[in-house]
């Protein structure tokens, strides 16, 4: 179980601190599909980075299958880091522009010295994962700027899955992609998730998507163990309900516009 308890994180900004996550608790079981929704700026990505051990929280604790995380980022043990993998929102930013797509997918294995780039096993793994996420082999030799956004996101997914994680966090995985690519990616994740008993946390601002794809959905604004609810929260909730309705409307239109 991936368990985050009372995670708090604030950033220094001009004119004081900005609290990104305020005492959020979240649990993700293996084999579970959990959705996490919330408006932009509500700290979803910060929480995701903390749960992937990439960012040290100010307060709170994180345990991965019983192992408590005390050090973060490069100081954290490689094996622990590999247990939770994060797929970022924008694939263009999340891939080093100087590595070929194939190199980028293999990079985690090489960086953590599980394999050397020359090993024959690398090619086998690379081709295997390329097939699973739906990349053709010729794309592996290209540079990131020579492939499409959707293809690059598939590569990011392969890069995350190649280290055999137990938990996968998808941070707005599909918000930059068109609907059909989005569906294909989620289908690929679903297949792998069922096969490997992967716990998937799907972070999105799209309530409808979360409701249809995930077994359970959490709202980041309700994760904090806060007492009482101010008027501001109620206003925000109203705004968010409107946003959700709007998003459902748009998705309905897109579905109709798509060829059968």
């Amino acid at each position, binding site marked *: 179980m991936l368990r985050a308890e009372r995670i708090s994180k604030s950033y220094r900004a001009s004119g004081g601190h900005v609290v990104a996550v305020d005492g959020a608790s979240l649990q993700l079981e293996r084999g579970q599909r959990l959705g996490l929704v919330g408006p932009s700026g509500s700290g979803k990505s910060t929480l995701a980075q903390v749960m992937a051990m990439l960012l040290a929280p100010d307060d709170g604790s994180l345990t991965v299958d019983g192992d408590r995380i005390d050090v973060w980022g*490069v100081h954290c043990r490689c094996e622990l880091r590999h247990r939770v993998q994060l797929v970022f929102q924008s694939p263009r930013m999340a891939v080093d522009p100087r590595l070929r797509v194939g190199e980028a997918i293999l990079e985690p294995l090489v960086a953590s010295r599980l394999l050397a780039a020359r090993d024959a096993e690398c090619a086998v793994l690379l081709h295997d994962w390329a097939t699973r996420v739906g990349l053709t082999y010729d794309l592996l030799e290209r540079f990131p700027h020579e492939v499409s956004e959707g293809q690059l996101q598939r590569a990011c997914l392969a890069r995350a899955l190649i280290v055999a994680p137990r938990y996968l966090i998808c941070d707005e995985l599909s918000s930059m992609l068109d609907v059909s690519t989005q569906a294909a990616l989620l289908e690929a994740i679903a297949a792998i998730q069922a096969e490997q008993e992967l716990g998937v946390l799907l972070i999105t601002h799209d309530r409808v998507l979360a409701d249809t794809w995930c077994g359970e959905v959490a709202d980041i604004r309700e994760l904090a163990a806060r007492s009482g609810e101010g008027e501001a929260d109620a206003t925000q909730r109203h705004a968010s309900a409107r946003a959700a309705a709007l998003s459902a409307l748009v998705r309905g239109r897109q579905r109709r516009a798509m060829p059968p």
Partner: protein
Amino acid sequence: MSAAGAALRLRGGLTQRLVETARRWPTYMRVAAGVLALLVVAGLLANVVAPLDDTAVDLDHVLEGPTAAHPMGTDEVGRDLLTRVLHGVRISLVIAVLASLAAVAVGALVGVLAGTLGGRADAVLMRMTDVFASQNHFLFGVLLLVLFRPVLGGTGAIMLAIGFTHWPSLARIVRGELLSVRERPFVLAAIGGGASRHRLARRHYLPHLLPAVGLAFVLTVPHAVFHESAYSFLGLGLEPHQASLGNILADGQRSLLAGGWWIALFPGLALLAIAMTIGTIAEYWREHLHPRWRSELEL
């Protein structure tokens, strides 16, 4: 070739890629590259191409204009000017390249230190850089020359003077690039994949900085050629008998009054050719590499 090698083979070797790049060059770039290649080869082969001794004095043929025996004429003590210019090209190019390397090394070091250490060390290093950048770097170079010439000799002092006055802009760029690349999400992704700090530096930071450093090096070379000849012209650089372009120009200035126009003209043209060809190539590279550096890398 192993299976992985086959899966990720590079498209074409370095030579092939260079040829492909050269094919896209506009005509002025081809001319510049050709002339520069000619100058470099002539400089490298100075001893072979010009078999005469560049310091051989021939008092029977003093201040002769261009003839078949001496295509660029002779100077006031009868030394063959073609030979001296060829040696001058070599000496000036070697000094300029080494001095630029020194400048780039200092700039990269300061930039990397400032970008890595951060905080107070960063502030101190960058204010120091500002102080250096606000000085007149030619005068500062003269000061360094005067101080270090007795210790290091002319050649060493010139390299030091150029190296220690041409680093601030590169230091700023390297620091900025380092700070910006560290914030990019692909670094977080690499950490998630298990990369160590060493791996991050080698695999992600360094390749990101190298183009800026390489470009700064090329941009500094023509500048260093001018500086070397200017210092030598002022009598602060190499020994007077050494055939650097600046020294020959200084000789030429004296001979101009005696009507010896060729002694100043030919080394001057050589100097111009070196600076213009390298400058043209660097300019082209800068335009195509990174538009944002256009304004920042004015050396």
